[in-house]
Every structure is written in C-alpha cells, then in structure tokens.
C-alpha cells in the first residue's frame, strides 16, 4: 500500500504538481500496481546478480577525439527563452 502523503512526496521529487484528489486517486492506482509488483518477493534472488549491463555486452570505448557537435544556435533553437547564447530561466534566488 502507499499513502497519499507518500504520493505527494514522490511528486515533489519528480517535479509534478498534484491536487489532494489526485494524490488520493493515485495512491489507490499505484497501490494496486505495487501489490502486483510485490509478486517479485516470491523469488529468492539473494544469489542472483542484477542484469548489468542490461544485455550482457561489454563496455565500448572510443578515441578521445573531438568531432562535430550541434551548433549553439541549433542547441538553443527549441528553447522557450534564450539570451546571449544561453538558456534564460525564471528567478532562482527565492527558490530555496
């Protein structure tokens, strides 16, 4: 089970806003999904390693060489607000 307060806490971590109604509804929905997920506890996995890397391959290396990258103009092209080759954001200082 999961409490509505926990849902609200997780929503803050995920940078999502929830109303009181939504957190109550999501607590029920997520609780149902998690009780299905809890079936995983039936398995003894103490001696089973996690699947890492995901599909068993080995690390891939490349030469540490420079190459073409996106231009600043392209990288900023989709930003809602920019200034002097930078992303512009709202005030941060009173955000603590």
């Amino acid at each position: 089970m999961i409490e509505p307060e926990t849902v609200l806490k997780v929503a803050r971590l995920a940078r999502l806003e929830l109303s009181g109604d939504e957190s109550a509804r999501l607590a029920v929905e997520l609780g149902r999904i998690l009780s299905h997920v809890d079936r995983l506890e039936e398995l003894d996995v103490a001696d089973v390693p996690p699947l890492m890397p995901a599909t068993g391959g080995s690390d891939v290396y490349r030469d540490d060489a420079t190459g073409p990258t996106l231009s600043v103009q392209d990288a900023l092209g989709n930003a809602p607000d920019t200034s002097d080759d930078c992303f512009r954001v709202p005030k941060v200082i009173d955000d603590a």
Partner: protein
Amino acid sequence: MTAPWPSIDALAASVRSGERSAAETVRTALKRISAHEDLGAFLHVDEARALDDAQAVDRRVGAGDDLPLAGVPVALKDNLCARGSPTTCGSRILEHFAPPYDATAVARLQQAGAVVVGKTNLDEFAMGSSNENSAFGPVKNPWDTTRAPGGSSGGSAAAVAAGIVPVALGSDTGGSIRQPAAFCGTVGLKPTYGRVSRYGLVAFGSSLDQIGPLTNRVSDAALVLAIMAGGDPRDATCSNDPVPDVVSGLDGGVEGLRVGLPKEYLGDGIEPCVRQAVATAAQRLAADGAEVREVSLPHTPYAIPAYYVVATCEASSNLARFDGIHYGRRAEAPNLSSTYERSRTEGLGAEVRRRILLGTFALSAGHYDAYYDRAMRVRTLIRRDFEQAFDSVDLLLSPAGPTPAFRLGEKTQDPLEMYLADILTVAANLAGVPGLVVPECVGEFEGAALPIGVQLMGPMWSEPTLLRVGHHLERTRGEMPAAPTGGTA
C-alpha cells in the same frame, strides 16, 4: 480499396529502372495519407518537403546512385527524430519541438533512398498498449474502427495495414512494435537490443528500447533491418559486430529447425482463436521438417512486474529532461522550481505522470533495493530462462498477445489491466532477445473479423533465423486479406 504496395525491393527496383519516379511514388503515399485521415494514424505530414526529398532521390537515381530503397515512402513513429520535422512523442510538452538532428536509423534509410512522408501517432512517449494515451487522439484499427490498433506504435501499424505506406518505423520497449503489428495484421520486428542504434529515438526505457520496422511482408522487414542495423559511435549500446546477411537466406526453409512452444505463453487467458493460430503455424513448421516441442520459461509470471519496475524507473530518469527550459512547452510561473512543476504537470498526460511517479517511488530512498534492484535480479532469471530454452531449441513460437485487437475504451479505466495485456511481449525486452510478429490468419473475435499474428523469438543476434522462419510461415500461409481500411467509420 487501396491497391497494396509491391515489395519494397520491387518498388525500389522500379524507381531505379525509371519505370516510375520517386516523386510519383511519394505522391501516391501522400494521397493515401489524406484519404485515410479518419484513422488518426498521422500527426504531421510535410508534403512539400517529402516531394523535395523525392525529387532529390530521382536526381540521385539519374546520376547512377544504386539506392536499395530508391523512392520508398516511409512513415516514422513520432518519437524518432528527423531534422526540422516536428517530433512530439504524442505529448503536449513537445508540441512545438523540431529536433536539429536525424536519428541514425532514419538517416541510414534516407541515405539508401527512402523518403520520409510523415510522422505517426503513438501513445505519449510510447507508454501504452492501445494508442489511447496520445495527447492528439487515438488511432483507429483499419480492420474495425471501433477497436484499438495496439500500442504504442499504433499509428505506424495502422498506416501499413491500411496500405498508406509500405514501411513504417516503430519502437519497442515492451511490445510496442509487435503487439500493434499483431492487432493490425502487419509484420513487426523488434531487433536484438543493440542491433539498431537508438540515437535520435526519444528515450523511454533505455535498456529496453529498440527501433524496428512494421511492413507488409517479412522480406521487407529484412531489407529495412539490413540498412538500419550496425554500429554507431553515437549509441554506445549499439553493437559494433558485423551484421549478418538477413536478406539472402530467407528462402532457406525450416528443415531440421528445433522450435519450442513455451507452455507459459499458451496457458489460461489466451483466446482460443489465438491459440489455434499458433497451433496451425506449428503444424506447418512440423510438416515442413521442423521439430516442434514444448519448452518452459518458468519465470514468465514475473515478467510484467519486473518490466513495470525497470521501465518506469528508467522513464522517470529519462523524462526528467522535460523541464520547460531546454525545449518544449514552458508554463508561466514565478520561479524556477514552479516553472519545472507547472510545465511538466500541464505538458505530460495522465499515464506518463503515473509512470514517472511509480518509477520515482521505486528509485527513492528506502525503496531502491525492494524494487529496482530486485527487478534487475529477476531480469537475470528471465534472461536465463531464454538461455536455457535456447539450449534445446533454435527459436520459440508463441502468440503475441492474449487476444486480437480489443475495443477502444475497453481498458482505459484500469491501468493495471492495460499493463497485463503486455504479458507475452515484455520478456523479450527484459532479456534483450529479438522478436518477430507475422500475421497468421483472420479469426473471429467478439463477432469481428480480425487479424491474428504469431510471435517468433530467438537468441541474441538470431535475426537471420527469425526472418527466415517468419518468411517460411508467410509463404506457406496463403494470402492474407487486406484490411477493410476503416471505410465504415
């Protein structure tokens, strides 16, 4: 009724020989997009650009370029980047996003002469099994417009099934190519994880996602895979190993092949018509010299819970980038923190928010070991199931889903019920192995005549075998009728 497309190979050959131009081929696809607008399969079409690109292909053909996909119209699921074209992922948060680069898979198809004609509808950020989670409306199944096309590559499957394009690309994180292929009666291939570069595919579950083709026939899927596959310095998870020839061995038959029927995939809850389709396919393989036996994938009941932990954890991390700052929609808010929260809350749909919350919860302090770590261990068990099965058989034959296409609206009230529909496809993604869906027959389900597909799964990198066996099933099946293409809506 729309005339079916010839094979991609024949289509490209006719453009190379000058029998038809790329421009007129692309015009045909564009006309079909307009004629089938009611299906909701496409989100963006840029006719002028498609025709420009087609004329460029005609010039290359005229200059003697030997293009294996000359003039072939291709549709892209709208989570694949094509430079300068809108790429919304079916989400409000990316409504006005146009990427400044091409996905590697897309660039390779274009280099081979294919022409992008449009971007197809999908469940938002590829999260869904019915295409009903798109912010821009659902797609209708061309076989029965009251039914779902499957998801999340529902637009791509419907576009191919309705005869609009000969090939569409999709992405498959837990069945998102194979299940819609089965629902719409097309071929759908999820390659081995690492066979096709994911560069330019908007990430959902990075250890699960693969790009693959949806086509009318297996040989078309093989040709498209051959062109997309292979190492890419921009995707470190993409294998640099040489790609085996997947095209020339298609007629090799099935003599001596060992085929496993996983018993957990044929148990309770599988519709009789689906079970019958698998049995018929198995009988044909046996009659043609294959040895068919039952095998077990004992951890199958744990695939859905493991998948919905791994996929949502990875999604919660991947989707953190949608913050209203770097690209996409920004909500007006007084400070940075509330800008993030409002932009994401207004821009992301209910299912995407639900999965982000689930993944964030499973990764949060105190829960990581119980959920993510445990799911990744169970993932090892699921992979071992496949490895053990492939000790005694060359590939597995199974259904692609418990039922043919379900009705629009049927499962939208209950997220868990929708998740459970993915039970026969998610294990391949968890294990990394390839899966191919091939239409087997048209069956009756709830009074409707609907296509039924069968799924082949093989060991890592076994695409040559999968495609050869899929091609054999298709060749020995007889003609599949075309979809009625939604003319009754």
